[in-house]
């Protein structure tokens, strides 16, 4: 048995390494996406007042603080057992849409576009955003501005800090000023233009990536996401739906609060990241994917004109009735979600409710359990709290989007490695390394969220035989 180790994976938030196990006949027998940082965040929260949880959990991650802020506030709403004012719901939605725009823009323009525009086999020292700037400086600048637009929405609502404790159990602290509203509205046309430009560019580039479409997580699995009424794309508050690869709805109208009835969490000794699965099918057969690809697979319509047109075209990949199975299409789904988010932001800003001064419902602890979910850019995020009668946290469980894609990421690596090892033997071909990294990046994993890690390191790849002897090594 030989091992190929890729340590760490670059352009992925957090800290991880990959081991590919080769059997004595030279075939890939397994692939493991190790996450090596210990997760201790849930323990850290015990004993804290539940009202502090949105502010605390938002500080887990610098990329998707809003996701934690909202899921935590919603869990807090459940502990108060209140219905929050309509304006507060709409403002929370607005912030979540800003978050989706900024996070997807970072993923597409700065992390994945170098692979897509410069090509997977281009010089690794140039296959980064600086290479992208040389190839298309205007696109790179537009990408920066699109991310800024999403960030600014968050700042208009929550203040300058990236971790605003603005959304709280019972509602939100502040409304949106008329001046802020105008500033956001004025920038929507440019943001839409950039999103459409990126989408058209992506579609034009697709013929260059037929091999990647085939080997980047192209396998049957379930897909999970929230949907609204009539199967509408939902990002803040809906029911959970699972579909299979044939497009069949296998579970629907599931209450996020009852997630333990349909999500199991398996543990493997070689990773601190858990392996969530669809409970009725068992582990690992219950593999499911979350995030943009899953949300587009589970929904029937986006609910806005431009995004609906794009969804129809997207679904044609799988003849309009089956699920789109290749994880390479996460990129496409992300761009459609940016367009949908921009259209929904525009709608929300013209809604008179959003200017209401009634923003908060006040109550004490009326339930000792609060479980809720929202859609983070990377997928469904669950926050589950138990409190005592004084509202002090007794137990916390967070089910993070990246963790829910864990089985799929491992299978993706295995699929890519099988393809290359079959062609090239047990040496590490540069093309395999590039594609394993790009295959993982398609999921845009956030390991800060999933393990609460931090830090970054240079890339090193080692080929090790069954006795631990290094037989090949590559570093960048």
């Amino acid at each position: 048995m030989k091992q190929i180790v890729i340590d760490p994976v670059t352009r992925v938030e957090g800290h991880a390494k990959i081991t590919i196990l080769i059997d004595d006949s030279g075939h890939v027998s397994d692939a493991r996406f190790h996450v090596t940082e210990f997760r201790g965040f849930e323990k850290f929260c015990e004993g804290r007042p539940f009202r502090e949880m949105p502010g605390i959990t938002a500080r887990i991650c610098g990329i998707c603080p809003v996701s934690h802020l909202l899921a935590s506030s919603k869990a807090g709403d459940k502990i108060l057992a209140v219905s929050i004012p309509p304006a507060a719901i709409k403002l929370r939605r607005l912030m979540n849409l800003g978050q989706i725009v900024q996070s997807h823009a970072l993923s597409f323009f700065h992390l994945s576009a170098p692979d897509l525009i410069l090509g997977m086999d281009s010089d690794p020292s140039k296959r980064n955003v600086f290479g992208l700037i040389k190839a298309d400086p205007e696109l790179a600048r537009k990408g920066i501005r699109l991310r800024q637009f999403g960030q600014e929405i968050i700042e208009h609502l929550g203040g300058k800090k990236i971790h605003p404790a603005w959304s709280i159990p019972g509602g939100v602290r502040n409304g949106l000023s008329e001046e802020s509203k105008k500033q956001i509205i004025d920038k929507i046309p440019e943001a839409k233009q950039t999103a459409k430009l990126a989408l058209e560019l992506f579609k034009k580039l697709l013929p260059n990536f037929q091999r990647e479409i085939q080997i980047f997580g192209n396998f049957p699995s379930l897909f999970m996401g929230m949907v609204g009424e009539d199967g509408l794309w939902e990002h803040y508050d809906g029911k959970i739906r699972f579909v299979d690869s044939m497009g069949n709805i296998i579970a629907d109208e599931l209450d996020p609060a009852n997630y333990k009835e349909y999500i199991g969490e398996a543990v493997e000794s070689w990773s601190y990241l858990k392996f969530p699965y669809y409970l009725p099918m068992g582990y690992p057969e219950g593999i499911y994917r979350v995030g943009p690809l899953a949300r587009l697979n589970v929904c029937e319509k986006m609910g806005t004109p431009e995004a609906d047109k794009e969804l129809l075209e997207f679904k044609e990949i799988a003849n309009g009735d089956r699920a789109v199975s290749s994880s390479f299409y996460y990129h496409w789904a992300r761009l459609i979600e940016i367009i949908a988010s921009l259209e929904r932001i525009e709608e929300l800003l013209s809604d008179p409710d959003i200017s209401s001064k009634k923003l908060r419902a006040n109550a004490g602890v009326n339930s000792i359990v609060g479980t809720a979910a929202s859609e983070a850019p990377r997928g469904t995020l669950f926050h589950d709290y138990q409190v005592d009668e004084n509202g002090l946290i007794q137990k916390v469980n967070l089910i993070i989007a990246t963790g829910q894609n864990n089985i799929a990421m491992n299978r993706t690596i295995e699929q890519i490695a099988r393809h290359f090892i079959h062609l090239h033997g047990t040496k590490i071909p540069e093309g395999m390394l590039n594609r394993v990294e790009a295959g993982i990046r398609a999921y845009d994993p956030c390991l800060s969220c999933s393990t609460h890690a931090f830090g970054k390191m240079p890339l090193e790849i080692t080929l090790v035989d069954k006795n631990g002897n290094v037989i090949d090594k590559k570093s960048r």
Partner: protein
Amino acid sequence: MSSPLEKKILIIGYGNTLRGDDGIGQIIAEKIEKLNFKDIDILALHQLTPDIAGKIIEYKVVFFIDASQNTELNEVQVLSLEPSESSPKIEHAMSPEDILKLAEELYNFYPKSFCVLVPARNFSFSENLSDLTKSMIQPAIKIITEKIKNFN
């Protein structure tokens, strides 16, 4: 080389405030904000992301305040910054040098920049600072405010 918008000074404190001393950059930035200096903007961030390149070009001078990962450092260190020499890989979190490089490549401009490194020891889950890092707050503020005077 001059900043196109002529704003004066930006102070960026960054780090994870749930990771003990790692959050010291944010804490110092917020304390400086309370001093209400004229012509100084403050950003308290979890991490540096590519869009910060679009922000720093509005300023003549930028200070990046961070916890040092050199566990042998015992006093506040101020370093002059230049853009990264090689093309760094973009990750969700970038270094100040990477941000300067990105600004230079995208906008043909980067401001005069300094990195203020604060001694740090504890990066585990905690909202408390180590005694050493706590004792460095006032010295760091003093050093930064002295530097600021040179640019006002």
